[in-house]
């Protein structure tokens, strides 16, 4: 690493010397994104050379996507009715499921991480649940809840909670002994230990889990829309598959990828803020 000095949390994020000039912003964007056009060109060349209907070229996919989702009026950001009908419900499911799983995963994770006894009783159940493929839950879910939102959310939560849970358990369990001892010695209350010591010290791991589960949530969103759904990106993906329409199928895949990229970018921004102490503290020059 060639950074001249560890940035303090206050000055982190922006480059030294205040706001980046336009030119530097461009340079940064280029350094971040140069591989994208390269990959696109390679993809185009590859698919054209292969010339199989299941692997349409990116341009074909783009045309199809435009036709499906981007032929609306400018006032709606060009989104078509089809897009407006399918994207928002999917996103709502995605966020609701992810948030629920995140909260539940962190809460349960801290409990299991800190209570050796509880962990002993519950551990097998956790790992049992973790290994069950979400699509195979159907026989258990149908009798217990109604098809639609309830079942979709359950599927998403069930599928994405594990990375958060496991990473939180790990983070909470392996808090530096000296930190826990300090907390004990100074008689920090249960809540203080949780909020001031255990959680901050586990945040790096929790964030790793949250980041993993964010992408998983997209995947589970698709899976949850495969059964009993009438709209959504996953529903469209399934429909394209059924209609043997590879460009539409790939279109849905690309949307998922783009969505994942944007979500991760946002997540990354938050993480940079929350974990600034961590980066700075662990930086070597």
């Amino acid at each position: 690493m060639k950074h001249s000095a560890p940035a303090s949390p206050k000055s982190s994020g922006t480059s030294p010397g205040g706001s980046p000039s336009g030119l530097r912003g461009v340079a940064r964007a280029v350094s971040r994104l140069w591989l994208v056009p390269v990959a696109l060109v390679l993809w185009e060349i590859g698919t054209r050379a292969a010339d199989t209907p299941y692997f349409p070229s990116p341009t074909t996919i783009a045309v199809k996507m435009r036709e499906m989702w981007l032929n609306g009026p400018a006032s709606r950001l060009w989104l078509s009715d089809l897009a407006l009908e399918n994207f928002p419900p999917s996103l709502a499911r995605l966020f609701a499921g992810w948030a629920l799983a995140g909260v539940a995963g962190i809460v349960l994770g801290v409990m299991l991480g800190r209570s050796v006894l509880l962990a002993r009783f519950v551990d097998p159940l956790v790992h049992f649940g973790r290994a069950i493929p979400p699509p195979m839950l159907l026989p258990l879910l149908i009798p217990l809840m109604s098809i639609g939102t309830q079942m979709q959310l359950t599927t998403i939560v069930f599928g994405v909670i594990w990375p958060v849970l496991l990473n939180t358990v790990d983070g909470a369990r392996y808090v530096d002994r000296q930190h826990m001892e300090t907390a004990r010695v100074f008689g920090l209350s249960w809540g203080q230990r949780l909020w001031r010591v255990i959680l901050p010290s586990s945040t790096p791991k929790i964030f790793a889990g949250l980041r993993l589960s964010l992408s998983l949530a997209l995947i589970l969103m698709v899976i949850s829309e495969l059964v009993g759904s009438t709209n959504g990106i996953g529903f469209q993906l399934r429909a394209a598959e059924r209609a043997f329409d590879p460009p539409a199928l790939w279109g849905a895949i690309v949307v998922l990828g783009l969505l994942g990229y944007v979500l991760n970018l946002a997540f990354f921004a938050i993480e940079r803020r929350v974990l600034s102490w961590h980066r700075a503290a662990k930086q070597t020059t």
Partner: protein
Amino acid sequence: NSGKAATSAAANGLEKTDLTIGMLPLPEVAPVQIAIKRGFFKAEGLNVKFTIIDGGGSALPSLLSGGFDVLHSNYVSAFTAASQKVADLKVVAEATVATPGSFVLVTAPNSNVTKVEDLKGKTIGVNTKRNVAMLTTSVTLKVHGLDLDRDKIEFAEIPFPNMWQALKTGQVAAAFLPEPFVSAAAADGGVKVTDLMAGPTDSFPIAGYFVTADFASKNPKTVAAFQRALLKAQSVAASDRKAVAEVLPLYTKINAQTAEIMQLPGYPITTNAVRLQRVSDLMSEYGYLQKPFNVNSLLLAGQK
């Protein structure tokens, strides 16, 4: 025995003797099992193995990539794929046509849906959208004067093994069920609303065996040998219910008891272009195909 098969294969001049067939674990493909069990394939010099698949549509890539040589698929999927030019397919043989009572619209006991007209504003369970289940259900609804959009009838995808659960818990008001699920539902109080294979869908062709056009043109003798053996088995199955019941446990979880009472599908011994065209025509009528599709392009030279 294998030595004999090899010599006869050489004598027949087969281009390929080892075949893999991808098929659903349904009563429809009983003839394949009969042919394997009774050595019909062997006699033709063929060594046939089968792989269980989950759906003709999702297994199609396997046919294209050479994972399977022959694919058992419902016509709706296959015709869609062919008309979309995703795959260049040929029908080797018809697998099944519907018989009365083998595909039924069912409701739970005590349901307030007793006739098709009651389905207004309701949700109907099908195993897969855009397949034979949804097509024949739509046709039946239309026959009864219902319109999907106007009467707000929806379809929900639910796998067959879970359909009864969904019916009993009221997730769907009615469900498309094939045999042996129909018999099982009836045994638990399920109510038949209507037979789906009547009128325009009477003796409706359900599924067939497909190869890629490329395979067909490269292996004409193998394909012919396969057809001969299969047709022999088809006629056994069509005439001898015991023979079917015998092989079902070999590749399905249908137990002997159910096998005896369930309604079997029809096993045609010819490939009938007119019959198949009916499927294609209904598909274009109901918007499953963007433009009319002539099934002749799927037939092998000898079938036209």
